[in-house]
């Protein structure tokens, strides 16, 4: 059963086409890594999945709900899809624990104590329970991104979207974030991950999607993709990453 | 009431209003050029390493900026004759007042402009053997002025609007001329609306110009 289905999505900014007829799907429990050179449209594609970026053609279906349909309650859908951003996007004016509870109480309608308990549990899980009362600005980048993951998990999402979660981090902080993601993948979370971290992809990805100039150029099992990529662009891309 | 509006008096009133507008423009231009020159000197004094000069300039700028323009207009109008011993016309008093007042505001803009030029530019100029004055004239000020051109113009639009405050000392500017015309023809409502339209047209055109300029400067950077 596919959790996310992207069907022939095209998107234009004015005259410029950023996505051209993109199709793929992510099954329940599957981890899919989307990679490609910068400007290939991968970040735009993942933002189409929860409707943060509108698209002009095609459709995205998440858990049998159409993202493009006019009558779809997007906030309700988004509440069930977790998302982690490149620049963390924690809310700077709220403490860490408030960041984790605000949507639980305001969107899901959970009681404050329940939301707090859930938040603390997740902070503990990402190793940041001691920082609950601090503000985002007082944490390192790696810590902030772990809080952001916990914030998304607090909503009990049916799947998680990661938009270059480690590319804004200093190198020494990348692993603490990847470790959390690996653990999540091993627990069976459905994940769509835009990243350049090929080590992560090798370790946990079931499938890899390679994008270039707004198109899905290659789609293969992780072993096949890293072992013998078929397209020239993918070969060049992998070679460039080795240097 | 709308149906009773009668703008036919605008025609015969125009020559008089034109004279008022000319004075408003003259006041704006004099205060702008004088204000920018004095303001630049004040800004240089403030950023200089001579403590006395920097303190004096700061005191002047901060004092003027903390007082309503209307009060400054009154101060100059009543105090200048006390010093010179002879009464001074409202128009001349306005020219002096606005130049001195605007200098304080322009100096803050120039100071920000000077700070916007990166320090290494000064080092580079010094490394080429330019004297401090040469560096200022050929390297720092040209860059600073380009950066602050939109803000200088915006301040000038504000200045043009503020010239209407010479009303307080009875100088015959655009607003005063319109008011007198309105009284003479017994059509004050129409004249206030007309003068508002003139101010709006001039300021709106200028501020649209500033926006275009801002975009172009942003591209050059």
């Amino acid at each position, binding site marked *: 059963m596919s959790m996310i289905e992207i069907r022939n999505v095209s998107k234009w900014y004015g005259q410029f086409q950023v996505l051209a007829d993109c199709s793929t799907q992510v099954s329940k429990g599957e981890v899919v890594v989307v990679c490609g050179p910068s400007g290939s449209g991968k970040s735009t594609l993942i933002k189409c999945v929860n409707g943060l970026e509108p698209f002009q053609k095609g459709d995205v279906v998440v858990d049998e709900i159409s993202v493009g349909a006019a009558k779809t309650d997007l906030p309700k859908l988004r509440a069930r899809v977790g*998302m982690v951003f490149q620049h963390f996007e924690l809310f700077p*004016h709220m403490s860490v624990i408030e960041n984790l509870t605000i949507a639980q109480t305001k*969107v899901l309608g959970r009681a404050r104590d329940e939301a707090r308990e859930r938040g603390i549990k997740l902070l503990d899980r990402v190793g940041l329970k001691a920082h609950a009362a601090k503000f985002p600005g007082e944490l390192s980048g790696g810590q902030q991104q772990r809080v952001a993951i916990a914030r998304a998990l607090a909503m009990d999402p049916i799947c998680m979207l990661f938009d270059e979660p480690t590319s804004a981090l200093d190198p020494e902080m990348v692993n603490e974030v990847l470790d959390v993601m690996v653990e999540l993948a091993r627990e069976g979370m459905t994940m769509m991950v835009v990243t350049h971290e090929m080590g992560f992809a090798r370790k946990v990805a079931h499938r890899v999607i390679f994008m270039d100039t707004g198109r899905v150029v290659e789609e293969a099992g992780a072993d096949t993709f890293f072992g013998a990529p078929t397209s020239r662009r993918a070969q060049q891309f992998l070679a460039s990453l080795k240097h | 009431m709308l149906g009773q509006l009668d703008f036919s008096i605008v025609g015969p009133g125009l020559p008089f209003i034109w004279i008022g507008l000319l004075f408003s423009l003259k006041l704006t231009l004099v205060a702008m050029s004088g204000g920018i020159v004095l303001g630049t000197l004040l800004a240089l004094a403030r950023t200089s390493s001579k403590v006395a000069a920097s303190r004096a300039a700061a005191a002047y700028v901060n004092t003027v900026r903390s007082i309503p323009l209307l009060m400054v207009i009154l101060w100059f109008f009543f105090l200048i004759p006390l010093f010179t011993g002879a009464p001074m016309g409202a128009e001349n008093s306005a020219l002096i007042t606005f130049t001195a007042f605007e200098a304080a505001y322009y100096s803050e803009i120039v100071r920000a402009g000077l700070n916007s030029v990166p320090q290494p530019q000064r080092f580079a100029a010094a490394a080429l053997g330019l004297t401090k004055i040469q560096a200022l004239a050929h390297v720092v000020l040209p860059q600073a002025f380009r950066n602050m051109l939109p803000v200088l113009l915006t301040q000038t639009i504000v200045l043009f609007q503020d010239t209407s405050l010479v009303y307080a000392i009875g100088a015959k500017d655009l607003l005063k001329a319109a008011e007198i015309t309105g009284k003479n023809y017994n059509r004050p409502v129409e004249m206030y609306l007309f003068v508002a339209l003139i101010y709006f047209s001039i300021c709106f055109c200028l*501020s649209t110009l500033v926006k275009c300029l801002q975009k172009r400067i942003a591209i050059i950077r």
Partner: protein
Amino acid sequence: MNYHWNWGVYLEQVSSGDERYLDWIVSALGWTVAVSMTAWVIALLLGGVVGTLRTAPNRWLVIAGNAWVEFFRNVPLLVQLFIWFFVVPEFLPAELSRWVKQDMPAKEFFTATICLGLFTSARVAEQVRSGIQSLPRGQKMAGLAMGFTLAQTYRYVILPMAFRIVIPPLTSEFMNIIKNSAVAFAIGLMELTFISRQMIEESGQVFESLLAATILYTVCAFAANRVMAFIEARARVPGYIAGAK
């Protein structure tokens, strides 16, 4: 310079009545503060709403908001004041028009307050808009991604941060509104500028009259500055450096 100093003038009786000049000044200070504060509340409320609407994903709201700002920013405050005082009453329904012109209590105060409030609201709206737009775009996305509606995203994510960003520019607007309230003299509101002119006329003590008003304006502006600095300190977010992303 031939000037007869008289620092005792404040305690002397005014020639036209049995009050002292000091009483005049105190009541003038009251009017200045009342006009400034009331207008400031109007400016904050209206300016906050208009500024926020100017960032809305709706073309007509943006155009309406822009028109509001351009209209109030491109006509001199004094001209706006005359329009509120002399022109607007002419366009009211007959009954209301007559009441405003003849019977309305504290007419000068209300006219000056509305005029100054709307004038400043345009400037506040401009600050609020640029404050909101200076926030990283990802913040709005993060709010939406968590399932907030657009209204909730503004309420919980965008506006609380925008509010903090606009405090410094709003501080100078608050000080400006006090200085700008001086124009109210032109329609006869007996605030500081009006009274200092009156005092010059009656007592002839130019220097003392102007000095009293000037010092009081400065004190008010300084007080406004301190109030805003207090709010700024209270609203400070730990670890967050304004402007850093």
